[in-house]
């Protein structure tokens, strides 16, 4: 990714109190409807990202020796530097990079092929009733005007912070986080996490990556389709020049 002054979100589960102001603020800004849910024996709700839910808090309860640990982890699009969704998307402009480095989308351009979720290492994109992509877009329509993303604006504790990516990385390191999740991965995530422990405790892969098959597709199959075509055309030309056409007259001579 080649955006200078890249912006990002710094998410610190240690600071998150699980109030879900972010979840609601996002719905308010994006005018997403509330959906009918049930209590499944947990505080967490809805159970997953949906086309009406761009970010949510996952409540991870873990027994520990002393009592219990309860983690609150904000789940959303990571605005990857090397975005699998963009890589895989067949419709130009459906997924695009804003000048702040966000991966935004344009429903009008989305062709509803539902491919992007396949390319996403974080299982983020969802599709609305028309089959069009829906996910966090880093409030591209706020940040472009110098406003904070709705979630970061609402968060009371600073668990979601928005700003210059480099400055946020530095801030997290200063606060004692040796490793900032997503600092380097996938050419740097646009949502970086200050994890106290191994990422998998928070439900994230140690080394996130775009699926091998997507890379294979991108690196081999796609190029092959034009190399192949070009090759055949070139070979035909060479053949034509070198050997020329098979003419019926030759048959006559042979006879």
């Amino acid at each position, binding site marked *: 990714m080649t955006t200078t002054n890249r912006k990002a979100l710094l998410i610190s589960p240690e600071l998150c109190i699980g109030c*879900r102001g972010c979840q609601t603020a996002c719905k308010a800004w994006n005018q997403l409807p509330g*959906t009918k849910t*049930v209590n499944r024996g947990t505080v967490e709700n*809805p159970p997953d990202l949906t086309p009406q839910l761009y970010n949510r808090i996952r409540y991870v309860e873990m027994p520990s020796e002393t009592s219990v640990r309860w983690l609150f982890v904000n789940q959303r699009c990571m605005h990857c530097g090397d975005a699998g969704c963009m890589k895989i998307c067949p419709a130009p402009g459906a997924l695009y990079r804003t000048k702040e480095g966000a991966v935004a989308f344009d429903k009008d351009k989305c062709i509803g092929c539902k491919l992007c979720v396949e390319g996403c290492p974080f299982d983020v994109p969802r599709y609305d009733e028309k089959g069009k992509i829906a996910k966090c877009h880093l409030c591209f329509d706020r940040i472009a005007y110098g406003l904070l993303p709705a979630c970061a604006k609402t968060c009371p504790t600073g668990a979601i912070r928005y700003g210059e990516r480099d400055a946020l990385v530095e801030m997290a390191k200063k606060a004692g986080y040796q490793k900032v999740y997503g600092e380097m991965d996938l050419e740097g995530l646009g949502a970086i996490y200050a994890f106290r422990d191994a990422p998998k405790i928070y439900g994230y892969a140690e080394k996130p990556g775009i699926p091998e098959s997507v890379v294979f597709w991108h690196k081999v199959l796609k190029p092959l389709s034009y190399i192949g075509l070009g090759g055949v055309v070139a070979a035909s030309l060479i053949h034509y020049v070198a050997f020329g056409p098979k003419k019926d007259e030759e048959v006559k001579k042979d006879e």
Partner: protein
Amino acid sequence: MTNHWVDVKNADVILVMGSNPAENHPISMKWVMRARERGAKLIVVDPRFTRTAAKADLYAPMRSGTDIAFLGGMIKYILDNNLYFKQYVVDYTNSSFLVNPEFKGPGQLNGLFSGYDPKTRKYDKKTWSFQMEENGIPKKDPSLRNPSCVFQLLKKHYSRYTLDKVSSITGTPKEKLEEVYKLYASTGKPDKAGTELYAMGWTQHTIGTQNIRAMCIVQLLLGNIGIAGGGINALRGESNVQGSTDHGLLFNILPGYNPVPSASIVDLKTYIDKFTPKTKDPKSVNWWGNRPKYITSYLKAIYGKAATKDNDFGYAWLPKLDEGMNGSWLVLFDQMFKGKFEGFFAWGQNPACSGANANKTRKALAKLKWMVNINLFDNETASFWKGPDMKPAEIQTEVFFLPAASSVEKEGSITNSSRLAQWRYKAIEPVGQSMPDSEIMNELYFRVKKLYQKQGGKFPAPVVNLTWDYGEKGPDGKIKHVDISLVAREINGYYLEDIIDKKATPPKQLGKKGVLCTNFVTLQADGTTSCGNWIFSGSYTQKDGKVINMMARRGKDDPTGLGFFSGWAWAWPVNRRIIYNRASVDPQGRPWDPKRAVIKWNAAKEDPNTKKPGVWEGDVPDGPAPPLAMEGGKYPFIMMATGMGAIFGPGLADGPFPEHYEALECPLEENLMSKQRINPTIKLFYDKASGVPEDIYFSCDVRFPYVATTYRVSEHWQTGVLTRHQPWQLEMQPQMFVEMSEELAKEKGIRDGDKVTVSSGRGKLWAVAIVTDRFKPFKVAGSTVHQVGMPWCFGWQYPEDGSGGESANLLTPTIGDANTMIPESKAFMVNVEKA
């Protein structure tokens, strides 16, 4: 709050006990987390591992209703290990006062203090008094060694709260107790600050007031009152609940915490004599000595020109309580249940879900002739007659529903827990036919007054003499629209005459006729000033002829870095951000902790008013008097007649020291602390001989074996009337639930997400089981005690398909705190079965 929200960031140790700010006051956690970023430690003590506990450095579980045992153990720990702040304790608290030698404590009297009368269930407080010198000042022993001094009595009283005893009462493991005690007691050093955040987890108990008192004692011992990052801080559950109590919401107080008179207090003089404390100690400010000014100015504010010296400023028109009458929530609904009321205004409330024993409340509503419900949405109260188990055909209550405007549809002030009055503006016009409350009151007032004027009636004077100068009058004499700023000005008060300080030489003009009061210092007891609420005097003032709404200020300067933001809105009293701040300095006026100086005495600077050397710098000090050790110096606790922090507190109904009693409904046959199981001074609504079955309770009964508590959730507001109609909120928290431990669930064959029935002696409801490690069984008195918890934000009326469930208040008992009558909904007994 003695301190304020932002100040929490200044603390070194934050004790969250009796509250759950992450879930119920999420914004406050901003300051808690700021403190933690600075290295502060957060302690959470709660029966359940809450979202706040998830952020804690130290979490200790504790069985509901045993806070006094827990804190009593802390007091013992502090005293045993000499961790108290000696100079503060000696100079600024009543620890050195000698108590009446007749006084006896629960250790000697089987759980009772001296003077108990079992017939009236009241104490005769004669022995709870101080020994007096001839000049009328309490006898003191600054060495704290006299066995009759408060300090020694305190020590003796809490010597019974041993770690073993406390642990077996609370169910908190001993190591955890010690860890908490050690960490919190570390704030007893002059340069350390500890703060306490509490809410309904402390107040909603039969020992609620004493829970808070116990913490006050801890804070006084550790020198944590008056300092930055200290204090004892009530987190108010509604954005404006502070404002409403300030302005006389409760049955027993008039605006500004003046007591409501009872019928026997026949005239203003008797009132003033009774409620104006006296002191002979020249060092005591004894602020309540100003009571005559405040009550008189209040009468002038509400009765205006009709209030004259000759008619006692209309004192006779003030509503009076009958002798011994209690008008608190439980009593009101008990009376309603007994058919003693004809009508009821349920204004901005939903008692069918919000109050304890809501089934009784719902039945009580059916006994009314009429009810007016004023709210944003229809709710369980307005529609009670078609609720579950109701027979609409048999209910004669005529219900009126008046739609009210929401907070963004009107202008006015709200006062938050920081005592900060902030002015808000109208964002949008009220929807449909809804009106701001003030407009509804205006209509009501006008019509009622007209009826009184026309028909006379029994006692028209209080209504017809009421001032109502809140805007332009129409041809019918009605105020067309209430100008809320005129209400604010009436609260602030006016000079009705030129006010001259005749004692000054030369006499000085304090106020000019017709001008808004500067502050309450200039209020008068002779009817020459009016003031609707003395503590708010100074909130809407006039300077150089210009009217200034102090509450609308939005200054963002913070010169001290301590977060006072003194230019932001306005805090009562006189924009003081930390009250009792004179206790933050030593008797010479030097801050205990110079790094966190709330105020400090600058002897080099000249006071611009008195032209004498020496001024206070920093926050607005508790009075301009110089430091205690100097000539004219004053004690820090200006609201106490003695000027001292009350370690011995004889004012309460249930004892001068907090003593552990069990909840009305508890899992134990006996109180491990004494023979007295429950608070001896609570009003019992039910006993076998009398009482209605609705008020029944079951303590230590196999039918209801589990301790229960109620709470709120971040996602819903109070009974949920506002938030259940909000699909975003409902999506996150859609259904009634009950949280329980893995162990209890296993015993009962309940799995996570199962539907279960929770029942108490007073009702039952269904809930989804949340089986969690965040609840753990307690080891109490050698056996296992399970606890469960439920929210009270759901109700049958909405969502309309009934998918939400019901309020936990269907289960809570009819019993209240001995002092405040706040219902005990944080500790009671239930059963849980798989549905």
